[in-house]
């Protein structure tokens, strides 16, 4: 197959990504099917980084000089772009962190600190935190640590055999005890896109906060925080054509205002005395120390790049590819999907096992063919435990992925089977 019912011209898009011309060992072309792990970067983003360092580099918010003003304007402008990209009502609701993990930890940590004035933002032994069995470790461990510190109980939604959230016990799970429901929007291992609204509705009934881990959704489809109706979301720059070293926490103003500060220092203060300090308003309250300035500029450019292509188109492209990949991989004897088998409410992340062959071996042979997939538990080990497997092989698509690359994957899996057969 060479024609995909996609609104994107992936061949054209590929020209924007220098690394896609890379030749691997044995002069093989790169077939990069690991974008859920990290995405590649378009030329525009690399140019923005270089231009920043070569012409405008200075620290932000501290200088009255020209470079300082330029750097500050560029940094704050990136915040405005990101806010618009996710439909945030105010740019002050966008906090730059180092990655999605920091954003998730920030919330878990400040809720656990006990320093919030309002008791709704303090975890204690009579409270519950509710997560799901399909979380990335970055949305499990912070809550385990928070619960350990505060005596709060950790509960979770289970999974159906199809790889979807088991929500039949919603009312029993999310109760008056629940302080926060923290869950993934799109699973990085199953590909599942969770239906958020029933959970938000229940959380509102019982007065719980809802935080969404959007690390795998914001890069791949239109996400509008106002429409979602949640309180907080986290995502990460490097998975959405941006640089490493930057992530985003978005939160409703009332919620961010109510959370106590997380890291202290640098520009997050209002005034500092040896005997005590007061803090800046959001977003700066949560941005201690020199922020990832160049990385924010790069992320702003990535957001421009994605917006120019149109997130609706990106999502449609991935849907077409996923449909094709599920169909073609599904035809191979011995391939079993881990996650939804139908291209409905799922993203372009396809996990599978190959009977009798360990994912490490699958990935290794694919790599020899120039096909980069991820193998392992994908930082979501409870999912593997749930389905009784040690690991999976995962192919994940993005706006530069072509149907020819899916074909290469399918041929590669067959070669793996011959090799170990």
């Amino acid at each position, binding site marked *: 197959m060479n024609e995909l019912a996609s609104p994107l011209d992936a061949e054209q898009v590929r020209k924007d990504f220098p690394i896609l011309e890379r030749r691997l060992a044995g002069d093989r072309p790169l077939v990069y099917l690991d974008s859920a792990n990290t995405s590649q970067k378009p030329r525009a983003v690399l140019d923005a980084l270089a231009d920043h360092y070569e012409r405008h580099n200075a620290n932000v918010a501290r200088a009255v000089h020209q470079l300082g003003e330029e750097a500050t304007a560029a940094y704050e402008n990136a915040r405005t772009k990101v806010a618009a990209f996710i439909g945030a009502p105010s740019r002050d609701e966008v906090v730059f962190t180092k990655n999605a993990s920091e954003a998730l930890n920030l919330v878990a940590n400040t809720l656990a600190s006990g320093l919030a004035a309002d008791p709704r933002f303090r975890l204690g032994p009579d409270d519950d935190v509710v997560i799901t069995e399909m979380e990335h470790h970055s949305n499990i461990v912070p809550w385990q640590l928070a619960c350990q510190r505060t005596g709060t109980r950790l509960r979770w939604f289970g999974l159906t055999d199809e790889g979807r959230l088991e929500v039949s016990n919603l009312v029993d799970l999310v109760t008056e005890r629940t302080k926060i429901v923290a869950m993934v929007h799109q699973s990085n291992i199953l590909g599942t896109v969770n239906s958020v609204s029933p959970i938000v509705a229940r959380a509102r009934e019982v007065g719980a906060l809802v935080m969404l881990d959007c690390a795998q959704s914001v890069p791949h489809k239109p996400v509008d925080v106002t429409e979602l109706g949640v309180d907080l979301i986290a995502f990460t720059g490097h998975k959405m054509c941006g640089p490493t070293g930057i992530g985003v926490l978005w939160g409703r103003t009332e919620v961010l205002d109510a959370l106590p500060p997380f890291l202290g220092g640098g520009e997050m203060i209002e005034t500092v005395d040896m005997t005590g300090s007061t803090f800046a308003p959001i977003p700066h309250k949560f941005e201690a120390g020199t922020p990832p300035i160049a990385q924010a500029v790069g992320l702003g450019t990535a957001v421009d790049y994605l917006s120019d292509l149109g997130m609706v188109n990106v999502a449609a492209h991935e849907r077409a590819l996923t449909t094709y990949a599920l169909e073609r991989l599904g035809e191979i004897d011995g391939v079993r999907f881990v996650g939804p088998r139908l291209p409905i409410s799922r993203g372009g992340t396809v996990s599978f096992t190959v009977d009798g062959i*360990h994912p*490490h071996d699958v990935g*290794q042979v694919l790599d020899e063919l120039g096909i980069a997939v991820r193998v*392992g538990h994908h930082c979501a080990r409870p999912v593997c435990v749930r389905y009784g497997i*040690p690991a999976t092989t995962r192919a994940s698509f993005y706006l530069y992925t072509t149907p020819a690359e899916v074909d290469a994957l399918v041929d590669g899996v067959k070669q793996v089977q011959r090799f*170990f057969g």
Partner: protein
Amino acid sequence: MTTDTLYQEIILDHYKHPAGRGLREPFDGESHQVNPTCGDEMTVRVRLAGDRVKDLSYDGKGCSISQASASVLHQLVAGHRVDEAFGTCDAFTELMQGRGEVEPDEDVLGDGIAFAGVARYPARIKCALLSWMAFRDAVARALAMAGKERA
């Protein structure tokens, strides 16, 4: 580097026909090791008799490299003197960590020399070493236990 450097015929043979696989009773020491990056697991039991490894039994889930390596481990140490076995362990570890620059000694490592190519794949070194780490730990536990019983 091609797949063949990594997946030597000998390795595939051990993978498909592992020697001494399965957990056996009785045993003096047991160790369970996990590779956090991929979730591979390996349990190794040792039965000692005097200064000898009377039996080494094992079970685990994992890739061809980790499974074949455990089979080779069994072949090389079961029935051998403990100090010899530790010498073999050292040689195998050195080979794995040698970035492909260590010349393996067939007299010491037997089929183990087939793993020389693994050393060039950083992500797989841990797979090859998993059972060997478990073996070392199992013997240490067995000896500690024996020490306690004597005391």
